[in-house]
C-alpha cells in the first residue's frame, strides 16, 4: 500500500464512520444530540481526515460525566456491553463501552507479531493492570487467538500513583515486590513463551530471574514512555538479546499502535509507533494551535481520533508529546516517535513505577 492509498482508505473510513454515528438508524445518542446543538451535520461537511479539524477536541470529561448508554450506537442498542476504564487515580475514571473492538485490534496486532518470537500455541503471562481495563481481556484474547492460554498477575496502578504522590516509595517497592513474587512463581513453574507487561515491571522481573532462560521468547510491552537508552537496556540486558522486545503505544481509547522492533538497533533504539489505521489515527499537533500539524522531526502533542463503529472519538488530546515521523513502507502513514509525557521537560509528571 502506498501513502496515497492509505490516505484514500482512511478518508473512506472517516466518511463511513461519520455516516454511522450521525445517522438516526445506527447513530450514537451522544453524537446525535451533539449534532443538534452544534448546528452542522458532519455527514455533509466531513469528507475525509483533513476535515476532522472541523470538530473541536473530544473532551475526556464526557467519558466521566455522560451515562455510558449514551455512547451505545442505536445499531447495538440491545447488546450488553463491556465497560473499560482508564485513569481514575482519583475520582470517577473515564469509561468506554465496547463489544468486539478489542478483539479486532488485537487480532490485527497479532498479524504483526513474529511467529519465531511469539510462537503460535505458546502460553502467555500478563503482568500489569487488569481489573476494569480493556487490556485484561485483550491480552487474553491475543493469547487465545494465537492458540495459547494466558496467566495473569494484577497490579493496581491507581494505588501505585497514590503512593508515589505521597512519596511513599518504600511502599511502592514493597508492592512491586509483591507483584513480582507472583509473576516469578508463575514464570518459573509454567510453560510460558510470551509476556505482556510494562517496561518497569519487565526490568523488575529481570532483576529476579533470567527471563529468556525461563523460556520466554517474546515480550510485548506498553505503558509508560521509554527513552532509547531504556529500550536498549531492556532489549540487550533485561532480555539478554535472546527474547524480542516489542514496544507498543496504546490505551483503552485507541487500541494499539505498533512499532518496528526489528529495526530498533539501526535506529539507535528510538521507537516510532504507527496507529492502527484506519481504525485510529494519531496526529502530532502544535500544542498552542492544535489545528496545525507539526513538521516531520518536530515534537508536538499527540492527538488521537478513533474511528470504529463502536466508538467515534475525534481529536482527543493525549497527555503525551512525540516527534512526528515519516511513514514507513510497512505502515504508510505518519508515525509518532520518542513518546514522552506532555510537558515532560517543564513539569514533573507521575508516570508510575508500574
Amino acid at each position, binding site marked *: 500500500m502506498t501513502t496515497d492509498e492509505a490516505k484514500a482508505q482512511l478518508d473512506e473510513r472517516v466518511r463511513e464512520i461519520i455516516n454511522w454515528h450521525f445517522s438516526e438508524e445506527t447513530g450514537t445518542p451522544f453524537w446525535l444530540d451533539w449534532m443538534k446543538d452544534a448546528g452542522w451535520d458532519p455527514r455533509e461537511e466531513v469528507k475525509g481526515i483533513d476535515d476532522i479539524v472541523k470538530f473541536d477536541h473530544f473532551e475526556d470529561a464526557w467519558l466521566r460525566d455522560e451515562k455510558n448508554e449514551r455512547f451505545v450506537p442505536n445499531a447495538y442498542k440491545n447488546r450488553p456491553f463491556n465497560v473499560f476504564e482508564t485513569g481514575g487515580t482519583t475520582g470517577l475514571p473515564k469509561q468506554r463501552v465496547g463489544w468486539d473492538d478489542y478483539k479486532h485490534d488485537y487480532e490485527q496486532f497479532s498479524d504483526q507479531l513474529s511467529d519465531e518470537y511469539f510462537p503460535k500455541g505458546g502460553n502467555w503471562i500478563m503482568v500489569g493492570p487488569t481489573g476494569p481495563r480493556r487490556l485484561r481481556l485483550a491480552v487474553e484474547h491475543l493469547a487465545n487467538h494465537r492458540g495459547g492460554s494466558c496467566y495473569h498477575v494484577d497490579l493496581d496502578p491507581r494505588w501505585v500513583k497514590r503512593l508515589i504522590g505521597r512519596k511513599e*516509595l*518504600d511502599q511502592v*517497592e514493597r508492592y512491586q515486590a509483591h507483584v513480582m513474587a507472583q509473576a516469578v512463581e508463575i514464570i518459573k513453574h509454567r510453560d510460558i513463551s510470551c509476556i505482556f507487561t510494562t517496561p*518497569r515491571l519487565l*526490568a*523488575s522481573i*529481570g*532483576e529476579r530471574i533470567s527471563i529468556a532462560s525461563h523460556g520466554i521468547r517474546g515480550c510485548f510491552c506498553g505503558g509508560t514512555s521509554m*527513552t*532509547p*537508552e*531504556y529500550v*536498549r*537496556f531492556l532489549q540487550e*540486558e*533485561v532480555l539478554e538479546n535472546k527474547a524480542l522486545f516489542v514496544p507498543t503505544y496504546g490505551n483503552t481509547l485507541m487500541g494499539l499502535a505498533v512499532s518496528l522492533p526489528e529495526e530498533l538497533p539501526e535506529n*539507535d*533504539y528510538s521507537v516510532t509507533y504507527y496507529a492502527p489505521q484506519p481504525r485510529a489515527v494519531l496526529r502530532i499537533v502544535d500544542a498552542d494551535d492544535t489545528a496545525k500539524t507539526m513538521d516531520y522531526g518536530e515534537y508536538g502533542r499527540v492527538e488521537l481520533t478513533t474511528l470504529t463503529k463502536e466508538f467515534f472519538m475525534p481529536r482527543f488530546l493525549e497527555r503525551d508529546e512525540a516527534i512526528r515521523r515519516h511513514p514507513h513502507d510497512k505502515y504508510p502513514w505518519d508515525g509518532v516517535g520518542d513518546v514522552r509525557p506532555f510537558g515532560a521537560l517543564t513539569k514533573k509528571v507521575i508516570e508510575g513505577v508500574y
Partner: protein
Amino acid sequence: MSAPHIPVLRQGKVHKSLDVQTIEKLGTDEPAAEISFACADMIKYDIARMGEAREKLRKMKSEDLIEITKKAGEIFLNDDLPIGVDGAMQSPEDYVLSLAATSGLPHALIRMNMQRLGGIFGQIEDIFQGLTRGLDIAVLDKGYGEQGGAPVSFSPTTNQLAVILPSNSPAVNALWIPSIAMKIPVLLKPGREEPWTPWRIIQAFIKAGCPAEAFSLYPTQHDGSGAIIRRAGRVMLFGDDSTVKQYENDPRIEVHGTGYSKFVIGEDEIENWKDYVDSMVESVSANSGRSCICTSTFVVPKYGDEIAEAIAERVAQIKPLAQDDPDAKLSGFANPKFAEWINEAVEDGLKSDGCRDVTANYREGERFHERDGMNYLQPTIIRCDSFDEPLALREFLFPFASVVECPQDEVLEKTGYSLVMTAVTKDIEWINQLFDCPHIERLNIGNIPTNRISWNQPHEGNLFEFLYTRRSFAIADSA
C-alpha cells in the same frame, strides 16, 4: 581540548548512553562536555552485581591498596589522564580549566582544592589509623586479629559505598577516597556540573593499579538517584535540613547537611578579640564560603558591633575577579538562579529591625553582582541583635555569617547543632561543658579557624564504622 564525552562507568566498564546531555561553559553556549546518563533500572541491576567488584578488592592486600591510594594522589595532582571515550588526555591544567568552566570556581580555589584532595590520598595511612583507633590494616585481609590486646573481627556492611555528589565543591570527594583502601568499591553519582573531579580521581586510581571494577560512575536523573539511595548498602548524600530529617532513622544513609559551624569567643578572651580576626575571616571566607565547615555564626559576649565591623571590612575586600586571576577567592554560581534566590532570602531577613548588613558600608556595589556571564554574591556579615533574628542561624553558599552577642553561659543553649565549633577560651570549666555537649561534632579549642579539619578523625560520621561492623568471634584451637 574539544568537549569530551563523559560515559557511564559500570564497574569500570565504559558505557556510552543513548541518553546524552550537554553541559555548557558558564555564560556561553559553548559545550564543555557531553554526559552519558544512566537509567534507574540499569543502576538497580548493577547494584545487585556489586559483589563482584567487592570481591576484586577483597582479594587484594590492604597494604597494596594503601600504596595504590598514595600513588593515585601523585597521579591525580601531576599526570595527564584519560578523559572521555575517544582516547583524549587531560592534564592537571586542563582539569582546572574544565572544572572552572562548568562550576564557576576560580582557578586558584580549584588548585587549592586539588592540593587538599592530594593530601587525602597521601594521608591514607593516618586516616585509617585515626578512624579505626589504631587497627592493624591487615585485619581487613584476614578478617580478624587483635587490637589493644583484644580479639577483633570486622565484616563489611555493604558491597559498595554510594555517594550522591554535589556540584559545588570538588573537595567533598575527599569523603569517599579512603573507601578504596578499606576494600569497599564506590558508586558515584556526580553533580550535573561537576563530573570532572570524580572522573579524574577514578582514572588516577586505575593508573595507580587499582582494579577498574572498584569504580562505578552514574550521571543520572532524579529517579536514578532515588534508585541509588533506596538500593545501595551504604549511601552518602548532601542536602538541607529536610533531607537530614528524611533519612535520620536509616542507618544505611549518612546525610551531609548544613554545618551551622560557629566561632565563639569566651568571656576570658574577649578583650583580645582583635588577635582572632584573621582566624574569623578565614573561617567565613575559605573555599568561597561554600563548605559546611565555614563559620556561619560568630558568637561573642560583647563587642559585637566592633567585631562585625572588623570582619566585614576584611571580607569586603574579597571581590568577584576574573576566574583566572590568581587572587580570585570568590566563586560564581553554576546555577545563576541560586544566587538570586539566596540574595532574596538575605534581603528578606534584613527586613527585620534587628538585622543589619555591616558589609554594605565596605563593599563596592551590591551584594548580587554579575561578571563574565556569571552571578556572584559578595561576602556579607550581618549583625544580629539576638538569636531570635531570622539571619542569626542561617547558612548560605557564599561567605556569609552573622555576629551575635550572647552571655557565655547561654551559648550552648542558644546555638544548637554545630558541625564545627571553634571556642577561643582557656576557661577549663566551660571547655569541659563544650566537650560534654552532644550537639558539637568537631570541637576546636583555641584560635583555630573552623575550616581546618583533620581527616584522621570522624567528619560527619566515621567512614570505617559506616562501612564495617565489629563482630564477636572465636576460633577453636583445632580449627
